[in-house]
């Protein structure tokens, strides 16, 4: 990808006009911006006209995202055919004086963007189609589709950003869409609160990101991502300032991509409709943090301490979340914790420098996790409950959901030849190499944590599958398989979960040719890792599945544990490590109740007390004068209609006679009288 570097240099040098255009080849350069624009337009169309449409708006959204998918696919193939990439910039506002500061909107369309575009538009399209059935009876069907469109547009707008400010704008907009969609069923307070929790938690991270962006500008004098990458690579920026800036930016990823300790919002976000969970809280929005670090990878790579922090945080997160996934009864929460754990995998991959592996896992995960969520949606749709304790035996009733869910689970567990197998191996391999060749302790930590997590992943998915599909049905009514609009996306995603892994087949898979660290050769797995790691990983995963089957098919394991010697550990996990409690009791309540209340008290009693005291004293001292003024003012005003008319007539004379100075003098005189009167009191 030397072209990228050239671009960075070129861009640094020139392009001061209203628009700067680079290397626009193929038809794409002229239409790729339509991909984010169409859903945004569709948002407005659905919002204002959706209710009057026969389809209640969903056709518009499906059309916009469908065209987006087509363009994204064409764009991808053009890039693959070596057509180069596209960069355009529009100046939003430029500060001319002093140090030049340009706020821009730009597009940068390279392989990373192209891959993300395909993922987002494809999952979004399938979710749009799926929701026509899933959300069919919803009260806010039209608004739901409007928000899906806005989300898709914002996400794409963020992905195509060539500068950090635009990235931040998109970042915030997907956040607010997430808020809207999580609190979609706002009749219940919990759901509405979950939306607020997500928004506020993300705001905390967003501020960190914002400061990171400021700090980047401060040291690099630009918001342009590729210029910053270039500056970091040639060593113009570096050292402690770069590390601080990078860590601050990573702070944004910690909340958005649900890493420890800010992951707490994501499980609550499951309050939203399930298709939303599939799209936003599994496949696309939550990977924004991964994408951001990947986009800025040269910067992060040259801020090694930051990279270590990322690896450690991610190593902790993957393990903590995987354990929590093991004790959930709500199937969506199992998947939510699984998502956190898998996001941590991607983040850890970046932390150990396995760039290609991170994006590859992001890519495969999007398909199989969306599949699992949509499958869970199908289950919930059938049994009207999120709880696995209300499910059981569903393989007989819902064969399509069953088969596709199993495919998704196996892919997540990392069983050959499904998608997760390939991508997870690459990450473990990357950690091993960074540990052994790079001598980084953090990488060893990732390796161990990743190994245990792989085991736990297979275990909790086995548990979830057993509890939902085997045994006797424990819920109410007779569940039935969903219709075509829901089943078709499931099969498409299942197909993807089977095949996309091969794109990253060791040595021959093309994925590494598309996505690699800008300016660096891809590290192929030519060594022994190639054979040993996959075998080991398979043994671990299969072992976990066998163990899981033995445990969970026999009896309800969680119940056993509650009374057993591990009761304390179970309780610790069931209470989510008390992290939520800590935030509630340690941060939110003290601020909300103690600090805010104390501030208000001091405002009312101390500050206002002083003011009122002074006033009362003055009034007491000058009661007669005050009464006169009061009488005069109020009487003048209350009975004033006539008086004012007279006064206006008086003013009229002044103005008609052209004596504006006289008028002003009168006015000033009146004011002066007031002043004098009040000064006297």
């Amino acid at each position, binding site marked *: 990808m030397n072209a990228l570097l050239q671009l960075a240099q070129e861009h640094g040098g020139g392009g001061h006009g209203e628009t700067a255009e680079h290397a626009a080849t193929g038809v794409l350069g002229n239409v790729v911006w339509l991909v984010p624009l169409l859903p945004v337009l569709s948002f407005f169309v659905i919002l204002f006209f959706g209710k009057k449409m026969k389809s209640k708006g969903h056709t518009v959204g499906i059309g916009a995202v469908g065209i987006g998918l087509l363009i994204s696919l064409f764009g991808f193939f053009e890039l693959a055919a070596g057509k180069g990439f596209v960069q355009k910039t529009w100046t939003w506002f430029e*500060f001319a004086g002093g140090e030049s500061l340009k706020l821009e909107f730009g597009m940068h369309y390279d392989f990373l963007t192209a891959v993300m575009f395909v993922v987002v538009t494809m999952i979004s399209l399938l979710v749009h189609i799926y929701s026509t059935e899933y959300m069919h009876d919803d009260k806010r069907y039209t608004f739901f589709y409007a928000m899906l469109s806005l989300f898709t547009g914002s996400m794409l707008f963020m992905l195509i950003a060539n500068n950090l400010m635009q990235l931040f704008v998109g970042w915030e907009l997907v956040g607010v869409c997430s808020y809207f969609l999580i609190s979609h069923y706002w009749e219940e307070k919990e759901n*509405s609160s979950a939306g607020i929790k997500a928004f506020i938690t993300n705001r905390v991270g967003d501020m960190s990101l914002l400061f990171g962006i400021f700090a980047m500008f401060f040291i690099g004098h630009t918001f342009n991502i590729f210029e910053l990458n270039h500056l970091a690579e040639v060593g113009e920026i570096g050292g402690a300032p770069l590390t601080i800036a990078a860590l601050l930016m990573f702070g944004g990823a910690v909340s958005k991509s649900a890493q420890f300790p800010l992951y707490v919002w994501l499980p609550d976000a499951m309050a939203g409709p399930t298709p939303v969970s599939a799209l936003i809280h599994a496949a696309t929005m939550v990977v924004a943090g991964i994408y951001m670090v990947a986009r800025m990878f040269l910067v992060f790579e040259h801020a090694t301490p930051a990279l270590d922090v990322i690896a450690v945080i991610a190593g902790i997160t993957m393990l903590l979340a995987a354990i929590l996934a093991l004790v959930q009864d709500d199937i969506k929460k199992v998947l939510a914790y699984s998502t956190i754990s898998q996001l941590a995998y991607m983040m850890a991959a970046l932390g150990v420098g396995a760039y290609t592996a991170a994006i590859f896992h992001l890519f495969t995960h999007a398909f199989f996790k969306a599949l699992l969520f949509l499958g869970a949606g199908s289950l919930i749709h059938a049994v009207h409950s999120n709880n696995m304790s209300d499910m059981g035996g569903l393989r007989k009733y819902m064969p399509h959901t069953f088969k596709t869910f199993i495919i998704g689970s196996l892919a997540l567990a990392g069983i050959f030849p499904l998608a997760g197998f390939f991508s997870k191996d690459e990450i473990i391999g990357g950690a091993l190499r960074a540990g052994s060749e790079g001598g980084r302790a953090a990488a060893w930590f990732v390796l161990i944590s990743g190994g245990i997590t792989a085991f736990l992943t297979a275990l909790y998915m086995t548990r979830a599958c057993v509890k939902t599909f085997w045994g006797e049905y424990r819920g109410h009514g007779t569940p039935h398989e969903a219709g075509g609009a829901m089943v078709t996306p499931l099969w498409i995603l299942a197909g993807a979960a089977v095949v996309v892994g091969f794109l990253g087949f060791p040595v021959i898979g093309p994925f590494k040719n598309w996505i690699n660290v800008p300016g660096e050769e891809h590290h192929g797995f030519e060594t022994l890792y190639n054979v040993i790691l996959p075998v080991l990983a398979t043994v671990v995963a299969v072992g976990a599945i066998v163990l899981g089957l033995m445990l969970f098919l026999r009896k309800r394991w969680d119940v056993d544990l509650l009374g057993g010697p591990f009761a304390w550990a179970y309780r610790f996990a069931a209470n989510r490590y008390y992290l939520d409690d800590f935030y509630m009791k340690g941060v939110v309540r003290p601020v909300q109740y103690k600090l805010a209340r104390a501030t208000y008290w001091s405002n009312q009693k101390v500050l206002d007390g002083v003011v009122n005291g002074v006033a009362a004293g003055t009034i007491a001292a000058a009661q007669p004068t005050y009464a006169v003024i009061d009488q005069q003012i109020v009487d003048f005003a209350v009975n004033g209609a006539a008086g*004012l008319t007279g006064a*206006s007539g008086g003013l009229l004379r002044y103005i008609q006679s052209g004596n504006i*100075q006289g008028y002003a003098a009168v*006015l000033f005189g009146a004011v002066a009288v007031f002043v004098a009167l009040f000064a006297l009191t």
Partner: protein
Amino acid sequence: MEDLPVLDLVIFAPLAGILLLAFIPKERLDALRYVTLGVTLVTFVISLGVLGQFDPSAQEQFQLGSSLQWIPEWGIGYITGIDGVSLWMVMLTTFLMPLGVLASWSVTKRAKPYFIFFLALETGLLGVFVALDMFLFYLFWEASLVPMYFLIGMWGYGRRIYAAMKFFLFTLVGSLLMLVAIVYLYFQAPGGPTFSYVELLDTPLTLDVQRLLFLGFFASFAVKVPLVPLHTWLPDAHTEAPTAGSVLLAGVLLKLGAYGLIRFAIPLFPDAARDLAPIIVGLSIVGIIYGALIATMQRDLKRLVAYSSVAHLGFVTLGIFVGSVQGMSGGILQMVSHGLSSGALFMLVGALYDRRHSRQIADFGGLAKTVPVFAGIFLLVALSSLGLPGLSGFVGEFLILLGTFFTYRWWVVPAAFGVVLAAIYLLWSYQRVFHGEVTNEANRSLPDLNPRELAMLAPIVALIVFIGVYPKPFLERIEPSAQRVVDTFNRSTVRPETASVQGGGK
């Protein structure tokens, strides 16, 4: 430039409107309303002419003004003119005024004096923004105080007399200190006593004198902004004022203070301003957090909006005093944004009060079900207020934080705490009012926004989105003026001690 003194027309058009109103019998409510609406609309249209004639790339500092002798023997002139700061303040005022009239439909008692005061207020406010003679400025400054006093005291709610008196006294004490400073300055002018702002700009003063005079002006402006701890008049005045009064208080009157700081306090006494800036920056940050914390505690929706103003104006003064052009530009744009969003919020709360005669958050819940359009607009305005990108609040806040980072580095961290708190109090109050099931029977049959209310909110919503997406037309007019003030602010030379005492020329 055309010959028409378009700027002066804008200022005095509302006064002409008062004459029209004088001829309308006080019983003819509709006539009074529509004539006032017409007058404010005409004023707005004329101000569009000002906007059209304003040249963003002009070399001279002030445009479109006129300069007449008034009382020459006292050095008093009728001098007006605008730059990129006052331009948007004038536009904001003329824009909000017709909407304020629409928000005054519930005023049925003593409507005639109400609308007369309303128009008098407009002239007063516009005069403050265009006056370039200190005497004229002070005149308008005080003149804008009086109508607002009556609007609160006569047409307000519950504790209106207390609120009006508090508002008046606070402002007045500040003003008197400013008056003293103005008079002192008048005698120090290098070319002999004058009130002309442009001539006074070059007045040589020692740092000590500058500090005192700066504090004199600052007392007046800080009360108006308001800066903590001088803000206690604000929640009372905002809460007790009639809806249109609150809209104009938050929308325009608070900006008088910030405008005064930009126009007078900094350029006249740059060394003192720079000297005291860290304290003011600190107070601004305290205000941001303080206002936001208290807003989270409010049970009265209108008081919540009022306290949010304290926090938002904290951002404005932060931007003004950090000494970078981004901060200054952001602060000025934030003045416009805050005028729009708080104006709209007060209109919405007022509309809610008209329906239910309550502003207590606890009386509501589930309103998104009964009044969905109302809820949608409320949320959009709230999102702008909490700084969501794509809406106007973001642009100003982003620039202020960026500007703060440039000069004060990590002071942005506590300021950003306020950004998070804003999300908390706005979304939380939205949740309590609009989300959930309808629990109070009285809320079940509330009518959604009527055409008049839509007409007053739609322009604001449109502008909020427009500025959020395309702030360039605003920023490109603001930036040169902001740059000029920042240059003055950063000019490092303290004027020589000797030159000051006797004012011996240049």
